């Protein structure tokens, strides 16, 4: 150990270890609880989530934390002001930056760059990460790497976890890494309803530098990243990036200009735990893990908050002094119960967290539920796999179904049943939300309908999500599976037919099945984008190189090949030709765009394909027949199509029985063919039988 210490001191001396913590979720996963409390202050096992994150950072020896708050900034400020982290003995300095208008991680990082607060590598983390990992080791690894690879801008902390593990929260990402260095070459986030859900495209170029790649689908994203100062700057440069993974990592890795590199840091320690509470399902999973002590030492009896006094009893029951338990009540297993709470006769509680000052009546069953502080559940109620917010009241003989989230202060019952996956909020909160939100009509309608539905004394209404702009299949799926107590059986059903579509089974297509493109729908979308690109290039006189770059981008983004590009751009370019002044305008078109065509035509097949596209173009209109021969001649002169290929293509076409327009076109071509054949014979008369091949 001795040699290690001075080194560490050295690093600390020259640069402060800083952390950027984002204290906003930018989503509605935990609504309506997050109407009043930011997600990072929601209690998990009766401790606000942010405490777990602070604890992790304190152990790692962090000195400075920048907390970016957006919504509920004041609440976070107040909380931190009264917490131990702002006391003089706090290991780090906490600075809070309020950015009300930030709507995404990208916005926050741009803000960070704008304020130029950071001069060194920093850790990017969220205020709702629960982890007991050794961050210092990850930092060390990052620093060592930076010393070798100056372009290493980011290290993503990941943990090996089966894709179906409950803490993975159904994030589906494939990391393509170089196993020897842990460099992340490609990041693939499959999205439902697109090609990316069915295949992972891997450019051949990856293999040039990295002959041995590893595709890892077994990595859970811990949402902890070690970033260099370039990361916020890159966000500023690319002002449209929102999401850290989907936009930033994918975008920078796909960039041909930048050679920034990304690495992963797989947590090697089998006992290390790391997860971000991203939604109801994960809230449930992480709570269970904390109770089951996977997160040791971050367990309830560590009493992370000042003033807590939990004691660990048998069967993972954690109890504070001052809890009144009726003699016939039963805390079965995995229960956390806070001070001042009481449980009535014959009530059974298991796998649940009960906050402080909760009143639980007689004959109540609570299973897999989370009751925040001050909740009252009256006699003969059942609560299953749900979250009840602060100060909620459930009157007697009521049932709360699976996966419900009930907002703060809601009163329901008596004698009602809240169906599964209901989200309830108070009328007052809904009205407040409606005031600040511009899409209010739905909420008001519901207010009227709901008034008596949730019991005589109820103030509850159904919470209506405000419209989110990303309503694609993936987002919907994500919000479904990440909901509390999601019934995976039902959601997963429709996956199966994607996985095993029987249509691909014929043996002929077996070989090239991997190359099969997407459905017609996407094609049109792609087609119109390419067409737009070309039109813009025509009208605004773009340089060939720029246009090409744009087309390449489109091609990769949509997983297309050069054929798809050719079939769109060739007709576009030929459309430019003025048929009444055929020769000069054709010459001009080729002068201007010949290079573009040449750069999307590479192999022999490409050449044949190009000829076929031109032929099809000319077949459409009688007037274009005269265009065919000069156009092919131009292609030949520009070396886009080689002599051999042209002859081969022509002969192959003539060999079939041609009719109508096609026959006419090939007859038109005959002079060129004859000329080529003669030239060839002159060229090498010693091997006459060569073209018989």
């Amino acid at each position, binding site marked *: 150990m001795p040699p290690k210490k001075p080194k560490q001191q050295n690093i600390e001396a020259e640069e402060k270890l800083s952390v950027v913590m984002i204290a906003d979720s930018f989503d509605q996963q935990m609504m309506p609880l997050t109407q009043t409390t930011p997600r990072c202050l929601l209690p998990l096992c009766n401790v606000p989530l942010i405490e777990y994150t602070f604890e992790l950072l304190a152990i790692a020896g962090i000195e400075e934390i920048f907390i970016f708050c957006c919504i509920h900034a004041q609440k976070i400020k107040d909380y931190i002001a009264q917490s131990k982290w702002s006391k003089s003995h706090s290991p780090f300095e906490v600075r809070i930056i309020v950015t009300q208008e930030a709507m995404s991680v990208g916005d926050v990082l741009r803000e960070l760059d704008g304020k130029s607060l950071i001069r060194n590598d920093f850790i990017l983390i969220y205020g709702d990460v629960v982890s007991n990992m050794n961050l210092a080791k990850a930092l060390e690894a990052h620093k060592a790497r930076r010393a070798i690879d100056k372009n290493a801008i980011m290290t993503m902390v990941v943990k090996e976890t089966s894709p179906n593990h409950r803490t993975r929260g159904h994030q589906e990402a494939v990391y393509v890494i170089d196993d020897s260095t842990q460099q992340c070459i490609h990041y693939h986030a499959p999205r439902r309803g697109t090609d990316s859900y069915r295949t992972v495209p891997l450019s051949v170029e990856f293999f040039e530098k990295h002959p041995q790649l590893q*595709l890892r689908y077994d990595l859970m994203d811990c949402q902890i990243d070690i970033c260099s100062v370039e990361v916020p700057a890159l966000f500023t440069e690319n002002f449209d990036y929102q999401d850290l993974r989907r936009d930033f990592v994918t975008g920078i890795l796909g960039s041909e200009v930048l050679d920034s590199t990304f690495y992963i840091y797989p947590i090697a320690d089998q006992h290390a735990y790391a997860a971000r509470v991203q939604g109801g399902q994960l809230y449930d999973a992480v709570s269970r893990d904390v109770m089951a002590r996977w997160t040791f030492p971050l367990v309830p009896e560590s009493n992370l908050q000042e003033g807590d006094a939990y004691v660990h009893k048998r069967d993972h029951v954690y109890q504070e002094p001052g809890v009144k338990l009726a003699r016939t009540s039963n805390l079965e297993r995995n229960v956390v119960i806070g001070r001042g709470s009481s449980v009535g006769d014959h009530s059974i509680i298991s796998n649940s967290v009960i906050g402080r000052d909760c009143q639980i009546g007689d004959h109540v069953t609570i299973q897999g539920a989370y009751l925040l502080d001050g909740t009252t559940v009256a006699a003969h109620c059942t609560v299953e796999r749900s979250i009840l917010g602060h100060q909620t009241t459930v009157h007697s003989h009521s049932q709360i179904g699976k996966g419900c989230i009930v907002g703060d202060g809601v009163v329901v019952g008596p004698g009602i049943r809240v169906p599964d996956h209901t989200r309830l909020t108070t009328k007052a909160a809904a009205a407040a939300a409606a005031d600040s939100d511009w899409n209010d009509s739905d909420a008001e309608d519901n207010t009227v309908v709901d008034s008596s539905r949730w019991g005589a004394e109820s103030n509850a209404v159904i919470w209506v999500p405000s419209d989110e702009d990303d309503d694609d299949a993936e987002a919907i799926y994500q919000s479904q599976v990440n909901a509390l107590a999601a019934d995976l059986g039902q959601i997963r059903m429709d996956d199966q037919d994607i996985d*095993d579509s029987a249509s691909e089974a014929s043996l002929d297509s077996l*070989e*090239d099945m991997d190359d099969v493109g997407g459905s017609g729908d996407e094609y049109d979308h792609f087609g119109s984008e390419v067409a737009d690109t070309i039109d813009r290039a025509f009208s605004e006189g773009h340089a060939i190189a720029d246009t090409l770059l744009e087309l390449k981008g489109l091609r990769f983004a949509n997983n297309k090949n050069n054929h798809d590009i050719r079939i769109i751009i060739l007709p576009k370019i030929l459309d430019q030709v003025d048929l009444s002044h055929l020769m000069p305008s054709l010459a001009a078109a080729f002068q201007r765009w010949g290079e573009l065509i040449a750069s999307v035509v590479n192999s022999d097949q490409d050449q044949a394909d190009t000829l076929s596209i031109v032929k099809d173009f000319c077949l459409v209109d009688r007037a274009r027949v005269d265009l065919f021969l000069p156009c092919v001649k131009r292609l030949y002169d520009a070396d886009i199509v080689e002599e051999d290929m042209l002859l081969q293509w022509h002969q192959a076409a003539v060999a079939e029985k041609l009719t109508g327009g096609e026959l006419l076109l090939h007859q038109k071509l005959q002079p060129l063919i004859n000329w080529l054949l003669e030239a060839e014979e002159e060229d090498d008369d010693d091997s006459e039988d060569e073209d018989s091949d």
Partner: protein
Amino acid sequence: MFSLDQTTSAKPQVVLEFQAIILAGNQGNIYPLAADDNLPKALLPIANRPMIAYPLQWLEATGIQNIIVAICSSSEAKLTHYLRNVYEGSAHIDIVTVDEHFSTAEVLRYLAPRIFQDFIVLPCDAVANPQTAYPQRFLDSYRSANPALTALFYEPPKSEGGGGSTKDSEWPLYVGLDATQQRLLYMRPGDRVKEALNLRMPLLRKFTRLNLVTHLQDAHIYVCKKWILDLVVQKKELTSFQKDVLPLLVRAQCRPSLLETEGISAIMDAARQRHKYNQSVHEWSTTVADDPMEPELRVNLYIASSGFMGRADSVPHYCDLNKHASRLFPDDRVAKSAEINSRSQIGADSMVGNLTKVDERTSVKKSVIGAHCVIGKNVKIVNSVLMDYITVEDGAKLDGCVICNNAKIQAKAQLKDCEVGASLVVDPETQAKNERIVSSFIPSGEEGMQVNFG
């Protein structure tokens, strides 16, 4: 002529559980070496041993006794003579003549009535170091994992400059392995890949950690369950074992729909039934594997990290393998019966065959010279392969050449990266580079190449 048992010290145990099939019919891409007037491909010398001796010895090292060699009619006489009269191994060799144009799967279909148990297929051009123990390990990995098929993969050794007039365009082979590096999950030859490989997500959902590598090559040596032969027999559209059968099996591993539509599961079920029956009837039988068949279709691979050297499937590979293989026999680099003039130099990296004469002031480097050759004065031979009965006259220079039997290189000819066909006479003072010098009754060098590669 060739002593083969010098290297195997202890006789391996006799193995009766496999039959082996050596595919020696196809002449492959090594024109003009394997022309009718020279030698069939299987008999081309590698380090002065016929090529086919290597796979045969490989099999003998595993203890396999039952070997079928599939040959074609054009090479029937020479190969039969070699296998019956010259080859000294102890295994029982069954020679079967098949149609010259048969592809690998067609050969198997033709041989099916003779195969009644798990089998090994290997090409005649698989060259391996016979001294290593990996053939047994390869079979052991098959025995212990009990998959449908185990393929042998190898890391190709670095090229030593090749030789001959063609340069290989080497395509990488994209190979996908599971985390344990045992299962073969993906295979795609580089020449079929345009810009990107598209891996199916369901594959990753099943095998969450997938290694995708380009440094391995398929040795074309496969050990298979008997039912794979049933599949080949049933599905007439499969022509090549390596290009059709293997990819089909690899893909079917995580695509249940394919198992059904291609009838693989039906064949597997039938095999399982038969296996049960066999076990109940002949409990003493040793020819049937004892462990029950795995319910899941699995294709494994075994990586020979050393020992396997490559396949002589092109002229440059053939040249390289000659150099690699020549190092295996340090003791008889220069045959005792060879007459080497004391004023000539034979490099330590070269071989000289029986009764060959080398005259004074001649230097031979990195080359293999066959038997009964006559090398004149002041000759330089570098990086070349000379077969048998070749005359090289005074002052000739050969660099990166392959010279076939009975050829004559006359005085002061300078050849670089050329192939010289059998019985050909190269005129004095000829200067040639990157050419195929072949007998006159084959139209022209160019044409010959096109026929071969077309």
